[in-house]
């Protein structure tokens, strides 16, 4: 087990800056997700930590030891790849045993470690088979077992669930969490799927354009996004952004006035999570013109406009609202995010 310190890591490809001086600390046994859209640099950062790519500048310490310039094999880590990278010409047993064999572990230890990892991921029945005969989910289990069998100081995972179908992904996610909680391995997990990051992580680092936009516990990031990008990236439906006029330090939400952070003058952007609303009489609430109503079973999803700006909100499943109607909405006043229309940064973020 070990902690990871990432200190001002920078990576350029020609004139393109893939990573702009990223710093991040991952505690011993912690699970941190790197979350972001494709091209944000999350995979590059992971590959730099693994030693598969070389940083342009900056330093990485694993368990206090600088690993810059070390070959991947000398960094004491294991990795789970997006396409599993299970060796097709070896049996499942040999795949799981691979790391131990390379370390010249003795036969008994190989056997016991493989058995342990196989039991943890329920792949004992396939140990003699070749990976080609396995399904995607089973191969994924082999890949995870191979990583855990070496008892790495650090586990790196690069979108490990993205090639599984939706149902399997949910199942593997739960199982992964259980397994990793049990092993207590320091883990960095790259994903573009915010529900995966939310469900698995102790902390999430949201990345965008080669920088970390925000880092924090999942719930904090969800409820208090530091910027418009984070709010829009997290959550389904994403956070709504409504531009509203400010008069005398307040904005008018329906027939109520709401004080806004002092620093703005003419306009402010309201960041509104779709579920932080409830139905109110049209005369009292904020007016929503409903364009489409989708009953999702667990909730009612409404798409429409507030002050001529597109919005998605969620109501309890029992409400009956039809397309074309106008309804009033009451907003949960303590759960609103206020953002600067110029910078897109949150004005009432607790860290600010």
């Amino acid at each position, binding site marked *: 087990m070990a902690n990871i310190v990432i200190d001002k890591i920078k990576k350029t490809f020609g004139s393109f800056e893939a990573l702009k001086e990223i710093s991040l600390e991952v505690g011993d046994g912690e699970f941190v997700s790197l979350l972001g859209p494709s091209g944000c640099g999350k995979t590059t950062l992971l590959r730099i930590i*693994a*030693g*598969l790519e070389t940083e342009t500048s900056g330093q990485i310490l694993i368990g206090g030891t600088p690993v810059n310039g070390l*070959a*991947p*094999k000398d960094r004491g*880590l*294991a*990795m789970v*790849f*997006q*396409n599993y*990278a299970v*060796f*097709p*010409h070896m049996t499942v047993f040999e795949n799981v045993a*691979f*790391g131990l064999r*390379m*370390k010249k572990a003795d036969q008994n230890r190989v056997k016991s470690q493989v058995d342990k990892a196989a039991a943890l991921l329920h792949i004992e029945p396939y140990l003699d088979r070749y990976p080609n005969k396995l399904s995607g989910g089973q191969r994924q289990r082999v890949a995870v077992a*191979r990583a855990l069998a*070496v008892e790495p100081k650090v586990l*790196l995972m690069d979108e490990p669930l993205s090639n599984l179908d939706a149902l399997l992904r949910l199942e593997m996610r739960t199982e992964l969490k259980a397994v990793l909680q049990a092993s207590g391995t320091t883990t960095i997990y790259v994903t573009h799927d915010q529900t995966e990051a939310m469900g698995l992580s102790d902390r999430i680092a949201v990345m965008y354009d080669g920088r970390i936009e925000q880092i924090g516990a999942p719930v904090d990031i969800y409820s208090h996004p530091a910027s418009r990008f984070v709010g829009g990236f997290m959550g389904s439906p994403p956070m709504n952004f409504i531009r509203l006029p400010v008069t005398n330090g307040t904005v008018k939400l329906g027939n109520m006035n709401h004080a806004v952070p002092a620093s703005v003058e003419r306009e402010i952007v309201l960041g509104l999570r779709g579920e932080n609303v409830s139905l109110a009489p049209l005369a009292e609430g904020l007016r929503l013109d409903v364009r489409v109503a989708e009953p999702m079973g667990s909730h009612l999803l409404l798409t429409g406009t507030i002050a001529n700006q597109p919005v998605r909100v969620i109501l309890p499943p029992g409400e009956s609202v039809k397309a074309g109607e106008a309804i009033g909405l009451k907003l949960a006043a303590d759960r609103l995010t206020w953002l600067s229309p110029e910078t897109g940064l949150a004005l009432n973020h607790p860290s600010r």
Partner: protein
Amino acid sequence: MTAAQPSNFGSARKMLLWSGIAALCAWVLVPIYLVALGAFGGRSGVYQWPKSILPTGISLEPFLLFLRTEGVAGAFLNSLGAAAVTVVLSVLIGAPAGYALARYDFRGKDSFRLLVLLTRAFPLAILALPLTVSFIRIGLYDTVIGVGLVHTILALPFAALVTQGIFMGVPRELEEAAWVFGCSRPQAFFRIVAPLALPGLAATAVFAFVISWNEVFAASVLTVRNRTLTAYLLTVLSESPLHYRFAGGLLLILPSVIFIFAVRRYLFAIWGISSK
């Protein structure tokens, strides 16, 4: 009646398709069959008139007689030797280049590819002409190794491009996984990449063999006494009896047909790659 028409029409088209396929198969196979008749028919067979396409009066004897003719066995062995040199050199030299093209981005990569592709626009065997002089000087003239070297020029660009495709077919992630789990680069190559690329590499080797085995011009120019089979046949062509020529043709055909059969699975994949 009207309902049956479409299916009649369909089966007529099917007939047409299959007769076309059968005709083209016959077009390929019949000449081979006929030269085999010629090879096994001996002197009497050659002058039989009119000929029957049935295998009458054939025996192994004329073919064996041809094999025992002075020079044939030696030429056969020389051809094998030159082909062996070609196979070993083109795979040993071409495969690393293919690996570099498949796995690395480096300055000069495009120029290197261009150099390799450029060889295709040239009738390479012709380059044996000036090599005669240099080969005489360094003692490679009239040797199996000299012929193998020139044949490697023919096979090397092919080997580099094909192995590039083969190595690209081995996912990079597999190699990276091996690095992460404790392999050095050479270890990862020999433990993971090489076993997975082996069938493709074997197919490449077979093609190198066929290229060398069939080459006529350079082999004829570069040898005098140590003739390869093609060079030998070319030079004795005008003064040898017909059934000897047919036997020679058959002897040339046999090994490469067997090899093509062995790699038939890879033919299309390889040409798909190398014609890109």
